[in-house]
């Protein structure tokens, strides 16, 4: 909790051994000697286990639909791109794709703004009921957001937000806020106060301190929680299934489920659609992952 803020990428500087051959090894978790060969072998096995099913999915998406059942080869025996053409044009999958992008980007933007403001208040101000309000937010982490589906459905109905992407965004924002606030409060607290005081001397307002100083300094943590929020919203299934009704409003996961229902045996286009649905979250993850380590260790989880 008491770690000081360092920039992205410096999170593991401490464990870096001195450069050059023959330098003494830093003692590690697997003993004083690094046992690189064994660890590499395990890492390879874990990576294959993790990526295997996904590589299989990619391979199947390029396999001719007529040859998909019973296919056990990792390389398509009858390669084709027709699955992608069919997936994108039929079932208005491209439309679902942009709905999902819209919902998750707007959710991330609102959550980042609201959570930064709240986390800043918790991290930098002393005020009556501070801890009480903080735990009031945290309490909802114990209650899965799915459990509120019924009253939320009725609420959406009353606010005329049923079957709308905006209604979905409201629910996603609310369910992602508490964790983001918790995480950013830890990060903001670790930023030395002197920076802020110097900034204030120049007459900066609170919002300016937040947007020009605290947020830029916290980009690793913000990137990380944004990634969590993005992938949560992009792939959320049960709430979207309940709230959305009209096919033109469907997000990707609903569109996918719909796919299987209508063409029961169209595995090829389904896997092509699955790949399309997976690529954005993987790209977002790969872009943000270099901050993952410093972000988590500075976010109050250490």
């Amino acid at each position, binding site marked *: 909790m008491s770690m000081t803020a360092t920039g992205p990428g410096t999170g593991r500087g401490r464990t870096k051994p001195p450069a050059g051959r023959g330098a003494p090894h830093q003692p590690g978790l697997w003993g004083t000697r690094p046992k690189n060969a064994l660890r590499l072998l395990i890492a390879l096995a874990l990576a294959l286990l993790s*990526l295997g099913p996904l590589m299989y999915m990619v391979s199947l998406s390029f396999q001719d639909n007529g040859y998909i059942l019973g296919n056990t080869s990792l390389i398509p025996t009858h390669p084709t791109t027709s699955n992608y053409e069919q997936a994108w044009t039929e079932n208005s999958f491209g439309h679902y794709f942009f709905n999902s992008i819209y919902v998750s980007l707007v959710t991330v933007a609102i959550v980042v703004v609201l959570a930064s403001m709240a986390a800043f*208040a918790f991290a930098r101000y002393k005020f009556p009921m501070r801890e009480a309000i903080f735990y009031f937010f945290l309490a909802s982490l114990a209650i899965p957001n799915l459990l509120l589906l019924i009253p939320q459905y009725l609420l959406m109905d009353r606010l005329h937000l049923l079957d709308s992407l905006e209604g979905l965004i409201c629910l996603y924002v609310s369910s992602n806020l508490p964790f983001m606030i918790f995480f950013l409060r830890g990060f903001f607290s670790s930023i030395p106060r002197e920076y802020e005081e110097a900034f204030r001397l120049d007459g900066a307002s609170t919002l300016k301190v937040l947007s020009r100083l605290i947020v830029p300094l916290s980009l690793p943590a913000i990137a990380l929680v944004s990634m969590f929020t993005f992938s949560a919203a992009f792939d959320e299934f049960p709430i979207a299934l309940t709230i959305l009704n009209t096919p033109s409003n469907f997000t990707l996961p609903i569109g996918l489920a719909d796919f299987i229902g209508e063409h029961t045996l169209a595995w090829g286009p389904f896997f092509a659609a699955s790949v399309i649905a997976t690529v954005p979250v993987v790209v977002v993850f790969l872009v943000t992952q270099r901050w993952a380590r410093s972000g988590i260790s500075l976010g109050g989880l*250490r």
Partner: protein
Amino acid sequence: MIAPGTLREGRPASVTLGASPRRQTNRSGRARKAATPYLLLLPALLVYCVFTVYPVFKQFEISFFNWHIFPGASNPFVGWSNYTKAFHDPIVRTAVRNVLLYTAITVPAQMAIGLFAASVLTDRLPGSLFWRAAIYIPVVTSYVVVSWVFSYIFSSEGGIANAVAGFFSGHTEAINWTGQTWTAMAVIWILTVWKGIGWSFIIFLAALDGVPRDLLESARIDGASEPRVWRHVVIPSIRAAITFVLVLLVIGAMQAFTQFYEITRGLGGPYNSTQNFMMYMYQQAFSFFNFGYAAALASLLALVLFGFSWAEIRVLRQADL
């Protein structure tokens, strides 16, 4: 990240806000300052209260009624009868059993494998960025997508799983994995563990950074065996992360829905035998329109989870002392 010169780090740190020439001494200025944190909190609180807190109470209210959503329908007050009904519902019993079993199997498995993977990758290793990404990627994939990939792998019509099982057992008849209770559950467990490892892995990886390496070494020099090193050095310094992962994984396991829904095609398996709590609640509400009963089920689970999280945090805090 900050343009040079924006921060006047050269100024003495002892210069405080109070010494500013623009300091606000008048009453309205002080009142405004006192209001600042509340103003900052206001938007988040507002959204949170409307879309999360209000539904909690609304749910509790609904659970005491025979609630219909159809316009013009009457919603008679039925007292605790939705709750007593839940305690006598055999499908609830099956659903609870399945959820507990699912939690007991998938949570420890995810934590153990995640921690093991983190211990392999915490110290310098060639290609560590790649290994890290590879292990984490299943986490960001969609449950709908991977449920169907696993359905396909375990398909009775020429799926890979049957080929492997046939190869090892010598049997030629295909196993209908997702069509039978226990094999369907096993597929769901395997899928969940596969998808969940990366999440605990990434948190443990960050936590293991904080394990004092010199302490590890001095423990080893003192002749401590590796299990003892883990028990007395590693585990104590990552306790906060263990609590966090455990609490969130259990909460996640209790609300498992999509993988059950997709693997059993939304039906809960033969005779509801793979039914799970969340799915049953969902069916009651949105297939049978028993909103009152479904709300009672949800309130019960919320209560259990709340008590559980609270107890778990307390127990682990005490163990820390």
